[in-house]
């Protein structure tokens, strides 16, 4: 246990330093993209270094939850349920931040807080689905049943996200496609220079590590609360 604590503290420090580095690099070092005209647009563009890694973490978190759900249904080990709920809570946090910060970027760039565009709509529906997941959990007392239902729901929800995205993409899109698109597409898109790419990948690594850290902290809380629950049962039925 003590050994674990040392590792956790080490991880905290590394993650904290990387996140500070990410802020400095994204705001101070990364150059302005060449094709954005107004200063407002150039300031707003810097969300890119946080916004994209932010959504990557959200996606990763939901993927981890779906895999944990499948592993729970196969193995019936309580710890996979803990991984599932922890990952969805962390993912939902990033999902919420992504929606709000994206809206703030959209205002100067698209001149509107919100538009029913595929990524935005999918993100909003995904948010609703995973809030539903938490409501579902809170409405079930039996831990095994809660774990089973949560696992089934997290797998179905994750499989549904691409279908929803496809369905909504058949309306026209204005969200920028920056990665893998020459010169950037969409309103507010821009080209990626080498420094921009370097800073971006740094931020991606920093955010992924932040996910791992938050996940471990949340998981530890979940294991502790499972242990408290077991002790309580043990005392009650002694």
């Amino acid at each position, binding site marked *: 246990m003590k050994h674990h604590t040392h590792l956790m503290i080490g991880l905290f420090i590394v993650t904290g330093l990387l996140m500070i580095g990410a802020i400095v690099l994204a705001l101070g070092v990364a150059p302005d993209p060449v094709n954005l005209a107004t200063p407002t647009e150039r300031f707003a563009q810097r969300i890119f270094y946080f916004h994209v890694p932010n959504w990557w973490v959200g996606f990763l978190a939901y993927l981890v939850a779906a895999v944990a759900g499948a592993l729970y*249904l196969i193995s019936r080990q309580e710890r996979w349920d803990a991984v599932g709920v922890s990952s969805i809570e962390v993912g939902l946090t990033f999902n919420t931040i992504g929606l709000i910060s994206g809206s703030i970027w959209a205002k100067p760039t698209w001149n509107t807080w919100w538009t029913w565009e595929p990524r935005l709509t999918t993100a909003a*529906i*995904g948010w*609703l*689905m995973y809030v*539903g997941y938490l*409501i*579902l959990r809170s*409405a*079930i*007392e039996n831990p095994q*049943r809660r774990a*089973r*239902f949560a*696992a*089934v*729901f997290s*797998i*179905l*929800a994750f*499989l*549904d996200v691409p*279908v*929803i995205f*496809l*369905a*909504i993409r*058949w309306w026209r899109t204005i969200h920028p496609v920056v990665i893998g698109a020459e010169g950037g597409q969409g309103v507010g898109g821009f080209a990626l220079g080498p420094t921009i790419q370097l800073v971006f990948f740094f931020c991606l690594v920093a955010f992924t590590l932040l996910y791992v850290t938050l996940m471990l902290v949340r998981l530890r809380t979940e294991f502790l609360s499972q242990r408290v629950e077991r002790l309580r049962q043990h005392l009650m039925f002694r």
Partner: protein
Amino acid sequence: MHHLRKILAIVAKDLAAELRTREMLGAMFVFALLVIFIFNFAFELRAENQRALAPGVLWVAITFSGMLGLSRSFIREKDRGSLEGLLLAPVDRGVIFLGKMLGNALFIAVIDFIVLPVFVVLFNIPVTALPPLAVIAVLGTIGLSGVGTLFSAMAVHTRAREVLLPVLLFPLIVPVILSAVKLSAAVIDNLPFAEAQQWLSLLLAFDIVFAVLSFLFFDYVVEE
């Protein structure tokens, strides 16, 4: 073949129970009508925007009244203590799922078929649009019933029961609602089939994939 007979036996049981009590279909139908009327007040439907709003109104009516039916599906079994009996029946759990799903789809389809003519009259839509709209309604109804039946079985085991079903179900069935609305709009606006084809493929794909997934997961939901 004998599987099909067992599935139909469950459907027949639900149908017989409904015909004797008439507790669902009447309420679902009136509710669907109410949704259409409320939209009239809410949007002050006038001649020029009626056609544009019609598909959305139709599908809100179908999904909302369908939700009523779906949530009753398992609550009814549970309240009468027949859920255990159903689960103890010497048949595969998959058979029970398909029976319940088919029953739910049947109830919602009945509502579709009663609401559609009323809808066509109220929105001044050509009668020739009825057959394609009916096909779309059936496909959309299958999409609702697949995941709907699974989540209905889930919701009945929770504290919130019927409150939980729409919260879980609506975000997941967005592709069904979207493609059904788009297809209905294409029929009402008399667009060429090629323009609506991708929505039809999406609806069919969703129907099949999510019915199969729900069929597979049903076992995990009802096990004790």
